[in-house]
């Protein structure tokens, strides 16, 4: 036999199956590209030396791992779809006289061709797009990095290793499938699995319970810290619920509908209900996958967009002035030294200090018991702890420009805790009368904890009167003029002086903070877009393959119905409604998932400092609309392929 026989046959096969192979190769190329780019960026030296570059790199290498794992699962899944579709063709080869080892040879060649094509195209595309993506990242992070066009050899090697192994494993599974099948089964390969699905009540109930549990957690979570702890559990429950309800729940509902004789035996319902039953049986897992992937994409994008866009608010909260100096566990002596150092340092540099504010505060960790607060030691369960911040009234008067005098047993009070309406506050068995309640937090104070734990702020005559005073903290903040670089160097100089003079204090600049935030949230945003694109691509491909396989199966049904007396337009209508229902079900569930997750994610964002709920609503709604639009476009494009097959 001609040496070129097998390779040629392999090429012919790929060409002949181009309707399914072309999207597969395209997916391979895209995943390879993404993997290469992500890894190349994560090891790019250009990112070194910027504030927060370490966390950014960790983030990006985590992204690389996610892309790798996801590509493996996804390519394996699509490959199994391809081979299932081709069983008949392979069976025919076998019947026509090709032995299984010959078929294996053909499959090997096919695998080699697709791998070589996708790796070459993927790497070339990756190398070209790498620069663009890096530019985008730099732009998002506001970095100023000089770099040239570069090819990352380590990334190429890693990409080759990862994807060659993926291709090799898929080839092995294909060969195994061929080996265990008999030719007669191969011939029938794609016509199996037409049994009516059984109703799985237990699974339906489990699914329902899991979904309700997940939603319940999301809705009932009180504190942001609890949200962080419970989020993972809620996600798992919702995932279980989604899979169980898509597979078992849908069938249970349809079977119930079928039992309603007067509903079922209506022209509009008759064909749809039974058709849906089989569609759901075959597609439930795929649809659940689409649903979960879409939810992941949307959550990721909406949160990262909000964080990125809401960063300035965050910075303002954390840095009321462009330099903030804090001294923890401090005392009078230290504070005096600190102020002196600060003054002399700024004077010697001839730097104007503007808008200076300073205050002392003492944070108490307390537990509320019968409307009394008790200070706690360090071993207490942190999730039950509340905070009391004690600040001298003199600082309050200065910050707010007021002149209030208090008796020793009086306080001015502020808290966001809703159900605290007492006229007094009792701390470690010492009772204080609340003279005045404030309705908004005082500007300039460090208010970052208010939304995380139950916090009570009291202004008193003498802060040593209240509780233990081991955590006294002195904060001073001020604005200085200068370029970012100058401000950075001043804060560095201050820190150096503090440690020289043995002052336990730390100067931070808003500039450095911005860089850190940018590299973290910008990195997250970048990763969100990247993974979002990957998941979206997966979703698109699953929809496409589903449409094709549906098409081939529906073709026969379509013909029979026509013979039995249904006219073409009627058939088209019922098929259309079924296809619409099947493919928009995941989208509907995705939106429901997100609606329920919303309160929980809002609380988690509060932990990260983002309190602008409107911004989050906006970005969530925006991403949902964009996603739904893309989904609809993909659907209508693939639907065209479907109708072509059916007719």
């Amino acid at each position, binding site marked *: 036999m001609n040496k070129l026989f097998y390779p040629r046959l392999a090429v012919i096969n790929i060409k002949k199956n181009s309707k399914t192979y072309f999207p597969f190769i395209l997916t391979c190329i895209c995943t390879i590209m993404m993997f290469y780019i992500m890894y190349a960026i994560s090891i790019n030296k250009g990112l070194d030396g910027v504030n927060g570059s370490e966390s950014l790199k960790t983030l990006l290498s985590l992204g690389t791992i996610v892309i790798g794992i996801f590509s493996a699962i996804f390519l394996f899944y699509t490959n199994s779809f391809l081979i299932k579709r081709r069983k008949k063709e392979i069976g025919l080869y076998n019947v026509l006289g090709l032995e299984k080892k010959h078929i294996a040879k053909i499959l090997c060649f096919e695998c080699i061709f697709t791998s070589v094509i996708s790796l070459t195209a993927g790497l070339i595309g990756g190398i070209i797009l790498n620069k663009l993506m890096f530019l985008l990242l730099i732009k998002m992070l506001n970095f100023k990095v000089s770099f040239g066009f570069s090819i990352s050899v380590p990334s190429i090697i890693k990409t080759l290793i990862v994807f060659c192994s993926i291709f090799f494993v898929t080839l092995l599974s294909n060969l195994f499938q061929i080996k265990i099948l008999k030719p007669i089964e191969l011939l029938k390969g794609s016509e199996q699995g037409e049994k009516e699905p059984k109703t799985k009540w237990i699974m339906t109930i489990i699914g329902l319970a899991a979904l309700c549990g997940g939603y319940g957690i999301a809705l009932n979570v009180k504190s942001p810290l609890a949200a962080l702890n419970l989020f993972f559990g809620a996600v798992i429950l919702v995932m279980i619920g989604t899979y169980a309800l898509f597979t078992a729940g849908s069938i249970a509902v349809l079977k119930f509908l079928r039992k309603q004789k007067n509903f079922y035996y209506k*022209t509009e319902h008759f064909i749809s209900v039974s058709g849906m039953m089989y569609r759901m049986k075959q597609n439930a897992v795929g649809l659940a996958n689409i649903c979960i992937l879409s939810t992941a994409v949307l959550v990721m994008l909406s949160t990262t967009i909000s964080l990125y866009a809401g960063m300035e608010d965050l910075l303002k909260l954390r840095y009321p002035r462009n330099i903030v100096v804090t001294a923890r566990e401090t005392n009078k002596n230290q504070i005096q030294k600190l102020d002196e150092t600060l003054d002399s340092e700024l004077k010697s540099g001839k730097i104007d200090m503007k808008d200076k504010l300073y205050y002392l505060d003492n944070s108490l960790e307390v537990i509320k018991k019968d409307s009394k607060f008790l200070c706690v030691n360090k071993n207490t369960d942190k999730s039950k702890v509340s905070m009391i911040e004690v600040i001298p009234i003199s600082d309050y008067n200065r910050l707010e420009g007021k002149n209030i005098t208090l008796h020793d047993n009086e306080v001015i009070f502020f808290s966001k805790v809703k159900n605290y309406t007492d006229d007094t506050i009792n701390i470690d068995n010492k009772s204080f009368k609340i003279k005045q309640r404030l309705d908004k937090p005082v500007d300039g104070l460090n208010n970052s904890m208010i939304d995380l734990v139950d916090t009570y702020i009291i202004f008193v005559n003498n802060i040593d009167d209240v509780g233990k005073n081991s955590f006294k903290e002195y904060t001073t903040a001020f604005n200085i003029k200068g370029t970012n670089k100058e401000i950075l160097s001043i804060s560095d100089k201050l820190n150096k002086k503090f440690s020289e003079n043995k002052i336990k204090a730390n100067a931070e600049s808003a500039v450095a903070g911005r860089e850190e935030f940018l590299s973290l949230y910008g990195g997250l945003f970048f990763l969100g877009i990247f993974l979002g694109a990957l998941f979206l691509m997966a979703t698109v491909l699953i929809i496409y393959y589903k449409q094709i396989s549906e098409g081939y199966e529906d073709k026969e049904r379509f013909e029979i119905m026509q013979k*039995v007396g249904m006219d073409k337009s009627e058939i088209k209508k019922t098929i259309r409604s079924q296809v619409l229902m099947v493919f928009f079900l995941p989208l509907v569930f995705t939106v429901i998932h997100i609606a329920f997750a919303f309160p929980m994610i809002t609380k988690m964002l509060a932990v990260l400092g983002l309190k602008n709920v409107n911004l989050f609503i906006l970005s969530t709604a925006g991403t949902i609309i964009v996603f739904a639009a893309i989904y609809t476009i993909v659907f209508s494009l693939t639907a065209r392929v479907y109708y072509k097959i059916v007719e």
Partner: protein
Amino acid sequence: MKLLEVNNLKKIYSSRFGGNQVQALSNVTFSVEKGEYVAIMGESGSGKTTLLNILASLDKPTSGEVLLQGKNIVAIKESEITAFRRENLGFVFQDFNLLDTFSLKDNIFLPLVLSRKSYGEMAKRLKPIAEKLGIEDILEKFPYEVSGGQKQRAAVARALITDPQLILADEPTGALDSKSTDQLLKLFSEINNEGQTIVMVTHSTKAASHAGRVLFIKDGEVFHQLYRGSMSKEEMFEKISNTLTVITTGGAANE
């Protein structure tokens, strides 16, 4: 009373750009009386499937007319044709054409559901038919769970349930074993005795020998026909097979 009249039916298939023309039916004329059981025989390519498709209003003839109870079905508008087919014709196919997503019962109900009948009426109609065909016990089963003969009986039930003027059967025994074939032919004879008109296209001499009349088609024309009269099935069988021999060996018909 004539139920079906076929006059000068002609069908020419041409390839898309009119290059090759194939004449499937050149000039077919015959009629079927109400209550008759007619078999149409002929070799592959003789035009019998084309004829049946035209009778079933699935295809349009190039010229000629088909009258069902005096109404020309060739002239029925496209939009009304499916409803017409559903109400007046019953079909039995070689490969059953049952939908595997439906139980046998739902398959049988399909034409009624399409005609928007109530469930009560459907159930009422099904009962005697299912009894007659001996499929009461398997109504809830799915096509893939039952034998070929059972599937074909379900298909017959589907054809009968609309109470059609005419049953058109296309090689109904083609995919059945000999026992199921016997059962089905017996069934056809029974429903014919009850007054149901049947037109059956078949290859099988045995199947045709059950009919009251056999039409032979050759090269797109009715070549010959045999009346059963008072002949027994065996005599009919012999007559048919003699005629087939004459047709295939190319002799002219003498009778």
